């Protein structure tokens, strides 16, 4: 009995104390806080060229850098499959501008300082990405064992002319309008179309530059396959409406459980509240993003979680009506209903797992929440609720069938 009281009090305290903080920390999806999401299909600019994993990754990174540069908050860029990139941006004021900027291929240029350029700026474009031999940029080590990048240029004559003209001068490397590293200095007239770029590069820095040059040589063309854009007001409205719907629905479920099953119903309600709290905690800890379909799964899951309690309590009542004592009814009810509930839950998990494997975006999110929710409900509404009830019955707190909602007249003699 003491363990029952302590458990309930401690859990209630923990839940009451932490819930406001937890709710603030739940990360909301774009459909709830406003923003836009675009799924790009990537293909090489030149027909017939191959799309490599590295170039997709690199393009995704450059998208993220661009989104950051445009001052958006926490852009999320992920690659999907072999040729897709998903981009999520919240809180954008000029959406059209951002979308246009994002779709432009990354432009790699080698530039020299033109007449009148201030110190450290370079405006004359000498070479563009397509002047480089695709995939030829590599990291090597020079005689001093320092990393350097070897490159190959398609047009030998052009390169010879450039190196001759810029001998002893700086040639800067730009990706879009961003200067990459310290500009290297042209040290020789190069006639065979190959060159190596050295500087104070770390091995990682050198590798990144080589990748960038390779990407610049073969930029990817991005086409929008799917886009979703949600205004912040509309998102907030969806969130408020749906949460309210969930609260009303949950409240009715709780009232139903208590009205129907009395004290065991109250225990089930407590388990359900614990279940909901745990689910929110899992969201925060695992850093899941809550989307509108996610909330729907959340709310439906509450209705599904109490199924375990309904099945258990109905079974217990049945055993009582058959004339068993309260303790043995509870024991038998817990035992037999356990198997039924597990079988039912496993089938739902099978479907949710398939949805997770085959779904994309919102479907995946929905399926994941459903799985987490079912697993949690096994812990709270099956194990925990069974335990609470058993403790109370053993302590002698539940002595009358009436407390289970069973009429004395319905009980058959054994």
């Amino acid at each position, binding site marked *: 009995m003491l363990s029952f009281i302590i458990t309930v009090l401690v859990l209630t305290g923990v839940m009451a104390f932490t819930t406001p903080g937890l709710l603030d920390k739940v990360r909301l999806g774009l459909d709830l806080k406003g923003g836009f999401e675009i799924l790009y299909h990537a293909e090489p600019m030149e027909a017939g060229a191959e799309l490599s994993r590295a170039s997709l990754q690199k393009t995704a990174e450059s998208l993220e850098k661009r989104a950051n540069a445009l001052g958006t908050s926490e852009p999320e860029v992920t690659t999907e499959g072999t040729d897709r990139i998903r981009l999520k941006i919240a809180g954008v004021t000029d959406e059209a501008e951002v979308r246009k900027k994002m779709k432009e291929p990354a432009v790699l240029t080698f530039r020299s300082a033109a007449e009148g350029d201030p110190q450290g700026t370079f405006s004359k474009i000498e070479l563009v990405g397509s002047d480089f031999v695709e995939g030829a940029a590599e990291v090597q080590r020079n005689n001093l064992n320092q990393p350097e990048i070897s490159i190959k240029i398609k047009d030998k004559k052009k390169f010879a002319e450039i190196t001759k003209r810029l001998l002893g001068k700086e040639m800067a490397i730009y990706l879009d309008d961003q200067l990459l590293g310290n500009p290297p200095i042209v040290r020789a007239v190069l006639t065979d179309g190959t060159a190596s770029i050295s500087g104070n590069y770390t091995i990682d820095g050198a590798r990144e530059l080589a990748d960038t040059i390779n990407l610049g040589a073969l930029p990817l063309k991005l086409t929008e396959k799917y886009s979703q854009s949600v205004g912040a007001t509309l998102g907030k409205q969806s969130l408020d409406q749906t949460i309210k719907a969930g609260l009303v629905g949950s409240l009715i479920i709780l009232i139903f459980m208590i009205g129907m099953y009395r004290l065991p119903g109250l225990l089930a309600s407590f388990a359900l509240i614990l279940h909901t709290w745990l689910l929110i905690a899992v969201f925060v800890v695992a850093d899941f993003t809550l989307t509108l379909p996610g909330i729907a799964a959340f709310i439906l899951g509450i*209705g599904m979680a109490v199924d375990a309690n309904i099945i258990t309590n109905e079974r217990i009542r049945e055993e009582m009506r058959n004339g068993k004592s309260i303790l043995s009814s509870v024991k038998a009810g817990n035992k037999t209903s356990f198997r039924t509930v597990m079988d039912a839950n496993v*089938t739902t998990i099978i479907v949710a797992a398939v949805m997770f494997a085959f779904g994309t975006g919102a479907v995946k999110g929905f399926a994941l929440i459903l799985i987490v929710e079912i697993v949690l409900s096994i812990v709270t509404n099956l194990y925990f609720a069974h335990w609470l009830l058993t403790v109370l019955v053993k302590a002698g707190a539940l002595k009358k069938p009436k407390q289970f909602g069973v009429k004395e007249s319905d009980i058959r003699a054994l």
Partner: protein
Amino acid sequence: MRFKKELDFVHLSKFFYIFSIAITVAGLIFLATMGLNYSVDFKAGSNVDVSLSKNITLEQLKPALKDLGISHEPDITLGENRVNIRYDEVLDSNQDEALKAAVTKLDDKASFEINTVDTEMAKELARNAIYSVLISCLGIIIYVSIRFEWRFALAAIVALVHDAFIVVAVFSIFRLEVDLTFIVAVLTIIGYSINDTIVIFDRIRENLRFGKQKTYEDLKALVNKSVAQTLMRSLYTAFTVFIAAFFLLVMGGESIKMFSLAMVIGLLFGAYSSIFIASPLWLLLKKRQKQTVKSNPAKA
């Protein structure tokens, strides 16, 4: 609450078979002739949902949209402080912006949700949905066959495919919009509506252990008894989820309305099919086993 007089569910189920077959046939006819009312999720195009601070009229909206230079005539649905504009053509980001600007002129507090899908993407979504349904069914058949026996698995699958199909049929008959969340709803129904069926089957399995059922009449009585014993809990468990789905439908966000509606319909039919379709169907399969292999005692 219990029934004083035992209902003959097996007998009643004959009428429900007819009812279910009638809906299925009607659904097939509608699907074959009218198909489904696909949203942009499945059909290339753009869907624009606008939340407004005041009501605007078609007369205001139409000329405003005309100047955008979009060749297609959009479908416009007006609602209370909302408007939905749907194009069969994918809007590019400039057109998106022009549209937003045009509507914002009519109401400066307008808030937008714009969804655009390419056909290829839509086909992929539909294909994945069909794979998901097939693989889910296969998974359930395997699991139920292991835990119970194949007859239970078959009866359960028929019942849940029935539930899923009726939802699709209702959406086809009433021309309700089918979007991506609809697929999620159908899959959830498949996963959930089997729960009630499992509860009843579990009871049939348990009751089978208690006595030897020699005749078809014995088996029939057993099924009736099992359904009656679990009837209230089947209804209650369906009720709690129904409450959740129902309030999502009437109070929840606009973009999950169709999801909630599909769930509500699916849950109702799920409860119905667990009671009146699945168990009698199992009995039908079991009866054939008795007739063919008379010497073999019924296995549980």
